[in-house]
């Protein structure tokens, strides 16, 4: 499964038929994103501590939503159990920090552990499809929460404080956790983008359009889904690890709460499922709403849930998809557009047919 080679193969064949990536200039977009990330990296020096903490939570939710979007929006798997990996990621950091690791350095380790755990889980839950898959993932998350809660060495049901961060001053702690969250979200969105531009993205698009057709053309559908499931566990694990590091207290009821799934699902639905931009927009809407309704307890989830239900039924492409359906604006161009080649010299002779081994792996 060599992803870059696959992408290159795709674009060579594409040029001959006048098939292009959505955006006119990916270099310009790349520069835009570098500038955005650079600006965000400077935020701790520009805004108040409270705003930095809001941004951190924004990054955590955006990471989760991007992962859920990969699962449901691209691979067609509705999981309501991603909180399993959020919780395991948080506990991974706790256990590693207890063993003397630096909690921030433990974030990637905990995320990789989550991906490793997700492999055997996928063997079980992949036996069910659709809604049954959804509830099965929820059962797994509940089981993980119960196992952790019954283990008193890591705090049992009441949870435990993450050690090893007290040596940092409050200012340094705030900056380090913020940058860790920024790094995680950049890697998560970048990984999703890279995956969707790779051969895997082509397989997922083929499956979405016609699963039987994709299978008969030799696409390894189950492998593609499993890779997405592993990546989603990795990302949600990293998000959970960030929660542990930034809140310094890990409680099973909180990190394994189904409200994480609710938030990642609503954010993706409202922003626009099946686009990388959608979760970004949805997370912004979520935080605007939450900041304005924070004093009203559960009200923001009531309003946000109702909005998500309405959008799922009447505007299933979400805010981003609806707004850009005519404009073809793509900030993360992962799709292809068929059109006339713009310049004749782009039209190269059709390359010789690729060997079958290369086109089916």
């Amino acid at each position, binding site marked *: 499964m060599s992803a870059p080679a696959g992408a290159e193969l795709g674009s060579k064949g594409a040029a001959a038929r006048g098939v292009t990536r959505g955006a006119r200039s990916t270099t310009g977009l790349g520069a835009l994103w570098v500038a955005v990330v650079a600006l965000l990296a400077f935020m701790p020096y520009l805004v108040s501590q409270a705003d930095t903490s809001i941004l951190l939570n924004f990054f955590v939710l955006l990471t989760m939503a991007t992962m859920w979007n990969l699962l449901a929006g691209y691979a067609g798997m509705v999981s309501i159990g991603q909180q399993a990996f959020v919780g395991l990621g948080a506990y991974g950091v706790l256990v590693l920090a207890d063993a003397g690791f630096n909690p921030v350095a433990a974030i990637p380790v905990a995320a990789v552990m989550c991906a490793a755990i997700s492999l055997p889980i996928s063997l079980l839950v992949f*036996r069910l*499809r659709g*809604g*049954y898959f959804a509830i099965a993932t929820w059962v797994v998350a509940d089981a993980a929460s119960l196992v952790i809660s019954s283990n008193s060495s890591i705090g049992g049901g009441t949870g435990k404080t993450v050690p090893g961060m007290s040596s940092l001053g409050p200012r340094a702690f705030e900056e380090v956790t913020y940058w860790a969250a920024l790094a995680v979200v950049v890697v998560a969105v970048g990984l999703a983008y890279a995956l969707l531009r790779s051969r895997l993205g082509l397989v997922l698009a083929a499956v979405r359009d016609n699963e039987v057709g994709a299978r008969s053309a030799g696409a390894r559908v189950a492998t593609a889904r499993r890779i997405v499931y592993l990546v989603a566990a990795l990302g949600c694990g990293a998000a959970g690890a960030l929660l542990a590091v930034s809140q310094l207290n890990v409680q099973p009821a909180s990190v394994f709460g189904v409200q994480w799934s*609710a938030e990642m699902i609503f954010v993706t*639905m409202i922003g626009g499922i099946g686009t990388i931009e959608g979760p970004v927009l949805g997370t912004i809407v979520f935080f605007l709403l939450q900041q304005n309704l924070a004093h009203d307890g559960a009200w923001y989830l009531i309003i946000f849930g109702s909005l998500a239900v309405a959008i799922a*039924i009447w505007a299933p492409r979400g805010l981003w998809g609806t707004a850009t359906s005519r404009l073809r604006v793509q900030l993360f161009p992962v799709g292809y557009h068929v059109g006339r080649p713009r310049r004749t010299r782009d039209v190269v002779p059709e390359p010789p047919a690729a060997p079958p081994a290369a086109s089916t792996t």
Partner: protein
Amino acid sequence: MSWVNAVIQGIMTGGYYALFACGLSLLFGVMGIINLAHGDLAVIAGYVAVLLVPETHLPVVWSFLVVVPIFAIGGYVLQRTLLQASLDRDPFTTLLVTFGLSVVAENALLEAFSSNGQSLNIGSLIAYSFNPTSTISLSYLSLVVLGVAVVVLGALQLFLSRTSTGRLVRAVADDTEAAQLVGVNYRHIFGIAAAIAFATVALAGIANGMYTEFAPTTGPANLLFAFESVVIGGIGSLWGTLVGGIVLGVAQQIGAQINPAYQVLAGHVVFLAVLAVRPRGLFGLRTAP
């Protein structure tokens, strides 16, 4: 002897789980809808009973006479509106819509009634029990609920196999388009199936409220138990669901016997084991969904 008691209590609980699960199973079988708000519906039924029954001056035991018709009508209306609208999109949308409704319902209940537990107080009836030996105690309430579950499942089976409406439900479930061709209004039939499913979940919610406390946040646990009963028993089999509920109930009681903290976990472990060894369940059809 306490192990024997655990198994017997598990069988009793299994009846309640089956009562719970048959609505979930029916909605999936007929419309292909997995109702993720199923557990919250039972909680809502409990709150409706708590609110309405004092108004009617009925004894609490008879509260289902009020709540079940309300739920049947509510189920029909919800199916003809929101659920049908999401079904017209695709099954994926029904999942997201029912999950959204579940979260909205849970938080709306939290706002309205706080997170405190409620229960349906049936007075001294809860204490009546039948004691064949000194260590085994069968509460009459559990026996009645198990009986109700068997009656409901039997009635549902008879309704589907013997009545003309039941035949229409099966026809629509088998092939919606072919049923339409011969003049069946499938939306109405879907509404009827939803009405039945909601009525059964109202019964389960009331039974739950009599057994134990419920709170806005207990909905998802109900959903998971109902779902596990369906999968253990085998998707598409009503009596399999009863067996699945009993297997789940016994597993939970044995787990609780080992350590009270393992009650729910033991059920999950048995469910995952069935998924690993026999994914189509004990009595399931040949193909898993």
